[in-house]
C-alpha cells in the first residue's frame, strides 16, 4: 500500500516536471551545448575528443544540478507556499510517504534527463569518431565511444541524487528562494570537503581549522563522485572506489531524507 502511494506521488511529481517549461529549456540547452562541442573540438588538435567528453560530462552534471535544484525546491517549498500541499496532506497519506514519493519522482525526472544527455553524448562521439582519420585516433588515450563514460555518468547521477536530497531537506522548512540558495551553496562547498579537512597543511590553524574540519564531516563529500578526469584520460577507476562512492551517496541521501521527514512531520501548515 505504502509503495503504491509513493508511486502515485512520484508519477505526479514526474508529470509536473515534464510539463514544466524549465525542464525542456534546460534539456534543450544541454543537448545544444553537446552539439556545439563538435565544433569546439575542432579547435584542439589531438585533444578534441577529450574536450567533447569533458564538455559532455560537465554539461550532464551542471544541467542535472540545475534541474535538481530548480525543480527540487518545488518539491515541497513551492507546494507549501502555494498551499497546494493542503488538500494532498488531508488525504490518508503520511508526510514521510509524501516526501519519499516526491524524492523518487525527481530521481525519475533526473534519470530521464541523464538518459537523454547520455544518448546525445554518445551520438556526438560516434559522429566524431567516424569523421576522424585513423592516424589522429591513434594518439587518443581512450576510445571515442568509451563505455567507461557510463561509470562517470552513473556517479554524476548519484551526486544529483545527493543534491536532490539536500534541496528536499531545505525545502521542508524554508522558502523556495532560500532553499535554492542553500542547496547551491552546499553543492559548491561539497566540492571542497577534502580541502577543508587539510587546511592545516596550508598554515591555517586554531578555531578556523577546527570549524572547517567539523563542517567538512557534515557537508557531502561530492569530490568522491568526480571521476571525469580519470575516465576522459583513460586512467583506470577501481570498481571498489565506484561502489564505495555509490554506497556513500545512498547513505548520505538516506540520512538527509530521514532528517527531512522528521522536520516535515513537525511542521504546522497555517
Amino acid at each position, binding site marked *: 500500500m505504502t509503495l503504491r502511494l509513493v508511486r502515485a506521488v512520484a508519477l505526479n511529481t514526474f508529470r509536473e516536471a515534464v510539463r514544466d517549461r524549465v525542464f525542456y529549456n534546460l534539456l534543450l540547452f544541454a543537448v545544444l551545448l553537446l552539439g556545439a562541442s563538435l565544433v569546439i573540438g575542432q579547435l584542439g588538435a589531438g585533444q578534441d575528443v577529450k574536450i567533447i567528453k569533458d564538455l559532455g560530462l560537465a554539461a550532464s552534471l551542471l544541467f542535472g544540478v540545475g534541474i535538481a535544484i530548480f525543480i527540487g525546491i518545488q518539491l515541497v517549498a513551492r507546494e507549501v507556499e502555494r498551499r497546494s500541499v493542503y*488538500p494532498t496532506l*488531508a488525504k490518508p497519506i503520511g508526510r514521510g510517504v509524501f516526501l519519499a514519493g516526491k524524492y523518487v519522482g525527481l530521481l525519475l525526472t533526473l534519470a530521464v534527463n541523464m538518459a537523454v544527455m547520455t544518448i546525445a553524448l554518445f551520438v556526438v562521439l560516434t559522429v566524431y569518431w567516424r569523421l576522424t582519420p585513423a592516424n589522429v585516433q591513434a594518439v587518443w588515450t581512450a576510445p571515442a565511444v568509451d563505455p567507461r563514460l557510463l561509470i562517470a555518468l552513473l556517479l554524476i547521477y548519484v551526486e544529483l541524487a545527493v543534491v536532490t536530497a539536500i534541496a528536499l531537506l531545505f525545502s521542508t522548512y524554508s522558502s523556495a528562494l532560500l532553499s535554492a540558495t542553500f542547496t547551491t551553496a552546499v553543492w559548491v562547498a561539497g566540492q571542497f570537503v577534502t580541502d577543508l579537512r587539510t587546511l592545516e597543511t596550508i598554515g591555517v590553524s586554531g578555531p578556523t581549522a577546527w570549524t572547517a574540519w567539523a563542517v567538512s564531516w557534515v557537508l557531502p563529500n561530492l569530490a568522491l563522485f568526480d571521476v571525469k578526469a580519470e575516465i576522459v584520460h583513460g586512467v583506470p577507476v577501481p570498481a571498489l572506489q565506484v561502489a564505495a562512492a555509490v554506497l556513500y551517496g545512498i547513505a548520505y541521501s538516506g540520512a538527509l531524507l530521514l532528517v527531512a521527514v522528521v522536520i516535515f512531520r513537525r511542521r504546522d501548515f497555517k
Partner: protein
Amino acid sequence: MSDPVIVVDLLTKDYPVGFWRPRPYRALDALSFTVAAGEVFGCLGPNGAGKSTTLKLLMGLVSPTSGQARMFGQSVRDVAVRRRVGFLPENPVFYDYLTGEELLAYYGQLCGMPHREARRRAGTLLDRVGLGAERRLAIRRYSKGMVQRLGVAQALVHDPELVILDEPMSGLDPIGRRDVRTLILSLRDEGKTILFSSHILSDAETLCSRVAILAAGRLQALGSMTDLVEFSVRTWDLLLDQVDDALVERLRADHAQVTSVAQGRTQVQFDGARAPEPILQAVSAAGARVIALQPVRETLEDVFLKHVEGKQRHPASREGGGAA
C-alpha cells in the same frame, strides 16, 4: 445514541509570532464541541475567529498546543482516520498543470483507490459538481468558481462518511452557492456528517442543524438553531395605505409605533406578543388598506452579532498550553 463522529476537547493552538523573540499568539483557546453522525454542523465566526485553525487541527495540518480531537473515536493524528474524512481547504489551490479529471484520479489513488476506479470516480464527481464538460481542461484555465467546485469534488473522491468544508461558498456566484447548498443537503440525505465553516450566515441558517459561534479564538455560543435563535415574533411590521389622522392617533394610543413612509404610506410596528387580528380589524374599519403584514423574528445574524461584537482575544501564556 451513537458515538459522536467528532469530539473536540479543550483544543488550544498557539502560533509563535515575531522573529527574534517569538511570542505565542493564541489562535484557538480551549475549544470543545461534538458533532453527531448525520449532522450538518456549522462553525461560524468573523475572520480570524479560529474557524480554519479548528478544521486544520482536525485534518492534522497543524498540531494542537494542548487538548485533543478525535474523529470516529480515533486521534486526528492517526493518518488512517482520513480514509473516512474528506476536506476542502479555504481558497484551495490545486496542481494547475493537471486537468480536473487527472487531479481527482490522483487524489483517488492517494486515498487507496486503484487507478482505473479513481478515474471512473473522477468522471462521476465532475458531473456531480457541474464540471463534466471541463474534465479535460487544465486547472490553470479554471475560473475561481470552477476551482471551488473542483475542491468540493476532491473532498468527496473517496466517498467519505464525514465531509469537512472550509468556507465552501467562497468565490462562488449565486448559482454556484445554490448548487453547493443543494450538494450539502444531498450529502446529508445520504447520511453523511458535514462540518463546515462560514461567515455567510444565511447559508448556515439554511443548512445547519447545529452551530458553534467562535470569536477571538474562543467558543461564544453552541447549540441547535432553535436553541440559539429566538423563533418567536419580536415585532409585527404593518404597512398601510389611505391612513387618516384619527387612525394614527388611535394606533399611537394603542402603543403602536407609527411612521410615515414614501408614497403616502404608513408603517406601523407593534409588539410581537400581541395578536395582529384586532389591529387589522380596527385598520379595516377606519377605511385604511393593508399592504403588508410581516412578523419580525430574531435571525442568526442577530445572535452572531450579539456573541461576536467587541470580543477580545485572550493572551496566550508564554509556556503555551494551559487552556483557560
